[in-house]
């Protein structure tokens, strides 16, 4: 198809239009080069993901050359640095689950509660101040939370009569819960505010109270977004390092006792990384094997969360 005939089939194209067409048709290598460069910038993010996978894969494969895969996944004894060596990852998984559980106890109900208040109860002006203020919590460095858990929350737990050890899963988990609370609140709030006004008006028109509208109409309608915020919050808790490294201890255990010390996957990676382990040794490879386990778990949760958010966006926006 000829470009000029589409708009003015009867007239002779004006000189200006001819010039414009010739300019548009002119090859501009500079423009193409810029586009190519910007594309490369965007591609760097994909390269990062590939880099992570490659960095984790090779030593992990090597690791499973010397350690049976099922002994790793199903083993209940984690002692990679002492003889007799044992590479059962379950104690690290249990440690991670314990701290994550207590983080969820704080972050999920209070995060959702804060989100419902922000979207259904607060005045628009209050909301404009409250939301960024809440996000300050997410901006506090995790090493600061670690200090707080160790030097304030743990002594507090002991003061109220719990026989908590100096390093315990409970205080690390609770503080971690406060850290991820804004993530849960902010994403849930996005999902709640995306619910169309007409649904609320319909319910109010039928005589429902604000409580009923919130819990029986808006929350169910925003459920996929709320679940997405929960999943992302859990993923954050699983991947958090400094709080558990400082306050939860380094004792691999398969007991879910929150008052005792535990070792999480992240804490193991960090504490092993501090020591200058020789490249190629089994200790060095455990960093990558545990890292791959952690990456796989959080990657899966992040993808689920992204999917769920897309779903409610498709329905309401």
């Amino acid at each position, binding site marked *: 198809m000829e470009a000029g005939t589409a708009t003015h089939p009867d007239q002779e194209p004006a000189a200006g239009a001819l010039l414009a067409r010739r*300019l548009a048709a002119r090859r501009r290598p*500079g*423009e193409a080069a810029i586009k190519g460069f*910007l*594309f*490369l*910038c*965007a*591609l*760097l*993010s*994909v390269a*990062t993901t590939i880099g*992570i996978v490659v960095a984790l894969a090779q030593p992990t494969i090597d690791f499973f050359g010397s350690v049976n895969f099922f002994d790793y996944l199903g083993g209940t004894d984690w002692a990679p640095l002492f003889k007799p060596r044992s590479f059962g990852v379950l104690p690290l998984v249990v440690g991670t689950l314990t701290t994550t559980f207590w983080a969820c106890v704080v972050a999920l*109900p*209070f995060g*959702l*509660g*804060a989100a419902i*208040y922000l979207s259904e*109860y607060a005045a628009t002006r209050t909301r404009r101040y409250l939301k960024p*203020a809440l996000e*300050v*919590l997410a*901006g*506090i*460095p*995790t*090493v*600061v939370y670690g*200090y*707080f858990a*160790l*030097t*304030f929350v743990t002594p507090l737990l002991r003061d109220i009569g719990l026989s908590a050890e100096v390093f315990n899963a409970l205080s690390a988990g609770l503080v971690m819960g*406060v850290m991820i609370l804004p993530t849960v*609140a902010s994403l849930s709030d996005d999902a709640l505010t995306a619910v169309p006004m007409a649904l609320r008006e319909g319910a109010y028109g*039928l*005589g429902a109270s*604000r*409580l009923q509208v919130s*819990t029986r109409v808006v929350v169910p309608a925003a459920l996929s977004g709320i679940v997405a915020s929960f999943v992302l919050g859990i*993923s*954050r808790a699983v*991947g958090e390092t*400094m709080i558990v490294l*400082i306050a939860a201890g380094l004792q691999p255990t398969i007991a879910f006792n929150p008052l005792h010390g535990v070792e999480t996957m*992240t804490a193991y*990676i*960090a504490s092993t*990384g*501090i020591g200058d382990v020789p*490249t190629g040794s089994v200790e060095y490879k455990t*960093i*990558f094997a545990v*890292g791959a386990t*952690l*990456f796989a778990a959080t990657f899966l949760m*992040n993808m689920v969360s*992204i999917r769920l958010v897309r779903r409610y966006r498709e329905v309401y926006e």
Partner: protein
Amino acid sequence: MSAIPVGARRVGPASSKERVKGVAFRALLLFSLAVGFITLVTLLVDVVNDGAGKLSWHFLSAFPSSIPSHAGIQSPIFGTVALMLLTALFAVPLGVGAALYLEEYANKARWYNRAIEINIQNLAAVPSIVYGILGLAFLVRGLSLGRVLLAGALTLTLLVLPIVIIASREAIRSVPNSIREGALALGATRWQMIRRQVLPAAIPGIATGSILALSRAIGETAPLILIGALTFVPFNPTGLDSAFTALPIQIFNWVSRPQDEFHVLAASAIIVLLVLLLAMNAFAIWLRNRYQRRW
């Protein structure tokens, strides 16, 4: 009640029981919101209580030491500032470039553009320690950079890049299309339009987002631990290939010692770190209020 069909509800003013339930629910929600703020205030008061007494010019200007009364944070401060500048230097141009591609050039119908977008969202949620593993494997050991400032800055660059991209995209998206159309109608090429119209209009938003991303980077500890910044460093970084430490690293070092004297030092260093973060955030907010245009 038996006359009312199943599923129907009584219409009219709420019963007193309903009203009590409503008030209780509202109180519960307010309490949820308060949990975060109460913890924040408690944390700040606790840290200031523990650490304010130790803050002095000597503490800011002395180097780390194994004797608590001599210890200071000069090299961690210099290390943090150097990391921040280098990370900004790498992450902002790359992040803005990627954002420009995704907003101005990418055809959303193409699978690879969608893949890049999902990938960036996912990277933003990858645990920071995984970036540390990446830095350890590729930068420190693979490229044999060693445990140096450049390796730290590059690791943090990869870590904050997704955040810079997401913030920059939002800023670019908020520039109205009429500006683009006007520029193109006057004969500008696509890049001329971006360079002279879109970018200048988006810069305040990009700057705000980038500063907030950087303030996340300077609080990061885990990836730096993994690439080996946790050495005792009583000197300021001298170049890209210099060993380094940073404020969060020094704080972690002090927190992980059992003696109370070191915990006090940690609290003092935390105050300095939080003041630095507060200054950056305040600057970002000021920048946004001062320069951001409403279209």
